[in-house]
């Protein structure tokens, strides 16, 4: 199967997790597997339900032998609903894991065992020993030729080649990997499609990036985050209180009944049911699903977090360090002007520039063709007519151009062209140098054009601010997040672009040390900082930042220093990551609020029903008008179980996220999940009660 196809299939699969039949079946099976006591013990709130289910089942069997506090049919009914409550919680977790498992399966397919061509050293390329990739050790040196798969994670020590990394990133365009510098890291499972590479392996078998990635998306490495633990403490504490409430209610009820000369109206079955209703089972059941789903949403955005903690930190971030290129400006600059030098006419420069760019499919290339046409009416020509040979851009030459009729036109960075012209015996004029400098000073990129050995002039490539970024930054500001533009430009240019893009601040002529200092300064003021980076020299700053996203295209050092890896290597990802982090925390908080708010209605359903016999006046509190004590309790636990299923989609999707200030977010979520949480169960329990009575169960 084509890699690209497989990737798109993988994304398709994970999107429709809920609708996918296979995945549903697997989740249902897992729901039963998770009934193992060891699994249950990890979630204290659900453990309480689990024990309650066992207890009521036991009571049912006792009731068959005549030891009963309620009729057996009712006890078994309660027991069944409690078992379903546990199963629903398991199912929620399983379905959340399902997406990750599907992603992991696809990744595993990429990780097939290949033959590795081991060589003793970079100098002895022909002394190949063929061993299976699983046997490779850290430090081994291998050679990978065009068409072969890279056998493991490593560092290129010799050669340059284009590599297809779509198996990991889903991005079909090949990338260049070469020895030295920031493009030297290769990942196992990717394929060399041109030239060859000598690679030194940097990870042991089983610990490769792909292995880590599989473990991560599968959730195998998942640990509870501090926030989850803190929330769990709250839930456990509430559960303890409710255990005490129900136990003391038994003695209260005994006391009150004795005073009235009656028998105790509250049975163990009813009190266990009351306990399960009151315990925060909704959030208890969905808590781990919410965490896994958050991780999964991040994976879908092609970002791998090294821990759940990193996602939560993303929600807290209030300073975003954004690289100018690709985030604020279009990564591809556009031609805005032709500046001829050394007496060349503008038309001549434009003509040559267009010719050299005809076959250049990059956006810069196309923008040159368009500009020449607009400014000088030079129409695009067919390459075959003129017998033109296109010379593509390579990592080595750093130029592209055309050869035709014995002429050579080249365009490229100033230093590359300078070298080229010098080789041909020409010279790089002072005027050209000045123009290049002037353009660079204004934040533009100069592209020098030469024909044979003569310099024609410079193409001014300009930064184009992305559409909508200004609004985006304004929204972020409303949420209390400051954006800081990082650029290598000089302060003057940087200030101009910063003002146009509407960022809060900028760091010009950014050096790795400068970035590190900036991060430290903000952290000292109590801010949490997020950044992206790719180069080895970004590693210290990445290690310092609270949320550090390393580009997958970056070096091994950068990836190790960061706590997330962006497979797309897209600089705008940071904003998505913050969104996902916030959404995860909001979902957790909203469902906790909902769960606790539900208790109010449950009390009103159960307490009056339970004690109407002792104090008939309490029927005034039975505002739902439920049929009987039994039907009221049964309806409440049934609601309690069903609400878990009903909320699974929300737990997986996350609550609605908007870029508004904290106070607005709070009032909205409070209205929906707090007030909603109080009202919904009143209606739902009444409905269930009516249905149960309607079908003659009570």
């Amino acid at each position: 199967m084509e890699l690209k196809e497989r990737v798109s299939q993988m994304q398709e699969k994970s999107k429709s997790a809920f609708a996918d039949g296979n995945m549903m079946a697997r989740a249902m099976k897992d729901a039963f597997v998770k009934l193992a006591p060891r699994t249950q013990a990890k979630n204290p709130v659900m453990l309480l339900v689990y024990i309650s289910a066992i207890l009521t089942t036991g009571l049912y069997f006792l009731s068959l032998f005549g030891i009963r506090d309620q009729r057996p049919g009712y006890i078994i009914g309660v027991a069944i609903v409690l078992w379903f409550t546990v199963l629903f919680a398991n199912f929620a977790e399983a379905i959340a894991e399902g997406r990750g498992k599907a992603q992991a399966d696809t990744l595993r397919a990429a990780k097939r065992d290949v033959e590795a061509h081991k060589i003793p050293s970079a100098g002895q390329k022909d002394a190949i020993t063929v061993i299976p990739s699983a046997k490779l050790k850290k430090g081994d040196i291998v050679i990978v030729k065009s068409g072969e798969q890279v056998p493991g994670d490593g560092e290129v020590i010799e050669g340059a080649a284009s590599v297809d990394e779509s198996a990991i990133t889903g991005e079909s365009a090949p990338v260049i990997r070469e020895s030295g510098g920031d493009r030297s890291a290769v990942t196992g499972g990717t394929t060399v499609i041109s030239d060859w590479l000598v690679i030194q392996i940097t990870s042991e078998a089983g610990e490769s990036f792909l292995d880590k990635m599989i473990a991560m998306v599968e959730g195998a490495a998942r640990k509870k985050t501090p926030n989850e633990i803190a929330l769990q403490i709250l839930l456990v504490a509430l559960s303890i209180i409710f255990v005490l409430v129900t136990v003391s209610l038994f003695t209260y009820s005994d006391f009150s009944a004795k005073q009235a000369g009656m028998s105790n109206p509250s049975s163990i079955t009813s009190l266990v049911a009351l306990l399960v209703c009151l315990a925060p089972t909704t959030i208890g059941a969905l808590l781990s699903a919410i965490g896994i789903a958050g991780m999964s949403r991040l994976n879908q955005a092609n970002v791998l977090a090294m821990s759940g903690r990193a996602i939560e930190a993303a929600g807290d971030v209030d300073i975003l360090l954004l690289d100018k290129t690709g985030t604020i400006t279009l990564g591809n600059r556009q031609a805005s002007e032709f500046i001829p030098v050394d007496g060349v006419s503008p038309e001549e420069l434009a003509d040559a520039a267009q010719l050299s760019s005809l076959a250049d499919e990059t956006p810069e290339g196309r923008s040159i063709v368009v500009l020449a046409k607009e400014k000088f009416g030079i129409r695009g020509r067919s390459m075959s007519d003129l017998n033109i040979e296109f010379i593509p851009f390579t990592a080595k030459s750093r130029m592209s151009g055309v050869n035709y009729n014995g002429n050579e036109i080249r365009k490229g960075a100033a230093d590359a062209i300078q070298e080229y012209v010098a080789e041909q015996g020409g010279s790089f004029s002072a005027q050209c140098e000045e123009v290049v400098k002037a353009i660079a000073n204004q934040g533009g990129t100069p592209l020098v054009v030469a024909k044979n050995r003569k310099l024609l002039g410079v193409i001014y490539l300009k930064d184009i601010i992305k559409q909508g970024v200004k609004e985006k930054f304004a929204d972020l500001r409303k949420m209390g997040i400051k954006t800081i533009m990082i650029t290598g430009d000089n302060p003057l240019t940087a200030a101009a672009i910063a003002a146009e893009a509407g960022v809060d601040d900028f760091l010009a002529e950014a050096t790795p040390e400068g970035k590190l200092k900036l991060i430290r300064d903000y952290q000292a003021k109590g801010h949490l900082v997020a950044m992206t980076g790719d180069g080895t020299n970004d590693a210290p700053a990445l290690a310092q930042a609270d949320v550090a996203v390393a580009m997958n295209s970056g070096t091994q050092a950068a990836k190790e220093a960061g706590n997330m890896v962006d497979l797309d290597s897209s600089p705008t990802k940071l904003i998505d990551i913050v969104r996902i982090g916030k959404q995860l925390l909001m979902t957790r908080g909203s469902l906790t609020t909902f769960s606790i708010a539900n208790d109010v209605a449950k009390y009103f359903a159960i307490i009056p029903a339970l004690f109407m016999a002792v104090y008939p006046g309490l029927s005034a509190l039975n505002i739902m008008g439920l049929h009987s004590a039994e039907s009221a309790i049964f309806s409440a636990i049934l609601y309690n179980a069903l609400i878990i299923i009903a909320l699974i989609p929300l737990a997986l999707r996350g609550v609605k996220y908007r870029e508004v200030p904290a106070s607005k977010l709070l009032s909205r979520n409070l209205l929906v999940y707090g007030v909603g949480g109080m009202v919904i169960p009143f209606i739902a329990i009444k409905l269930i009660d009516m249905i149960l009575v309607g079908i003659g169960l009570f």
Partner: protein
Amino acid sequence: MNSVLQYGLYIAILVLLAIPLGGYIAKVMRGEKVFLTRVLAPCERGVYRLLRVKQEEDMGWKKYAGCALLFSAICLAVLMVLHMIQNLLPLNPEGLPGTSWHLAFNTAASFVTNTNWQAYSGEATLSYFTQMMGLTVQNFVSAAVGMAVLFALIRGLTRVKQNGIGNFWTDVTRSILYILIPLSILVSLALISQGVVQNFTPYETVTLVEPIALENGTQVTQQIVPMGPAASQVAIKQLGTNGGGFFGANSAHPFENPTPLSNLMEMISILVIPVALCFTFGKCVNDKKQGVAIFLAMMIILLGALTVTAVQEQGGTAQLEQDGAVDIRGENQAGGNMEGKEARFGIATSVTWTVFTTSASNGSVNSMLDSYTPIGGMIPLLLMELGEVAFGGVGCGLYGMLAFAILTVFIAGLMVGRTPEYLGKKIEPYEMRMAMLICLATPVAILIGSGIAAFLPQTAQSLNNSGAHGFSEMLYAYSSAGGNNGSAFAGFNANTPFFNVSLGLSMLFVRFVPMVAALAIAGSMARKKKVAVSAGTLSTSNAMFIGLLIGIVLLVGALSFFPALSLGPIAEFVQGMA
């Protein structure tokens, strides 16, 4: 209408006095110069020299907590012994015998924990020496310990990356010297002017103006009038949210609270320090709005409670009117349920006192709660069950409320998409665990205590009433201990070994578990860095937060006690409706 004016006036006087006092306390806490420094600084230094306290020492939370516990343990032991051997000690003109061990334990636990639950009647049980050297001393120091712990918590919230949270001994000494003693001197002198007794003379026997015939035919012609150093104890009993009366009838007794003016002073004294501490808090965290927010949350709970009780008591019940026991039409008198209330105070003043005293963990009374209407009696019960955080005891009320604030920011903070923080400090599992201990200590103590008591056959014998009202009497006793309040519903004989010991343990649990937890939070917060505030931060001083905080306090209380209240006052209320 007249009574609404009264309520408004009481609250206004309270707040107007509390605001400047709050500023004064903040200065004392930080060891800054105040107008009394010149007089008191030598005393302060003398105390440190005597106790060999290193004034400059900055304690970590464990040492601070260790000192607080050790100090309280010594107080507990001394007080217990004092009770049991009072017959051997001076100032015992009536020759009262030493008390039983269980009563001594109960009373010692009660006064050391600032609960001041009394299973005895002062004039019939305790010598002047025990009252003065035992109880009055504890009235001062137990309040000072509460304030010290609050100071430590405030320091924890404000300090950045430090280990120390202050010095227990200097905090206690300053609280007593600069705050409690000067205020007590003022209040006791004012009370003496109103006729509160202050002497060491033996009880007097007087001939009754009109002899009383008992049911069995005996003629009673004489009455014993108890005496003693009451004024000095009453002042600190009110100011230190202690509440243990010098006489059994507490502030309903004419020698403790003779006039409407003495009543007003005592009533304001109940809440003035707890209210002032809210403003102290705001000042010390350098954001007055934070203090005002906490104050408003507490005040709104208090006003709500006051309104419900006032309406219920003013209205009385249909049964009361039916039997002609109470005139609730309001034509011949102020009207309402006057049963169990002093005629010299009337309904408005009695109700205000009752709500103040139960919201403040004071527990002194000037009317008998057992005779309140069902819902009128439920409100004091509920105020205690909320954990005494709507003002609450001196120091402990506020640190309890701050734990609820932590709980509130935890839930609300998540809803705005951030991991929760309070005053710039992140709330992590450790703080959450400690905050839960503080918030849930009261429900745990009350539910376990009353749950066991409800199961024991002897409980019914201690009750005056049967049915729902009897249940309320039992629940009230455990709520009073579990809230460290100490007020009594009456109608419940608590002086039995079981009740003395179980209530005593309950009081110790509810006092010291939250105290240690609050200090643990202080220690952990002090070590943390401070997170910057942005538009994405949850505000902890706006109306939304105040509402949420009230909501969480009420929700925790309601979820814990709805079943219990339904079987007590609510059942009684709905029975009355039928």
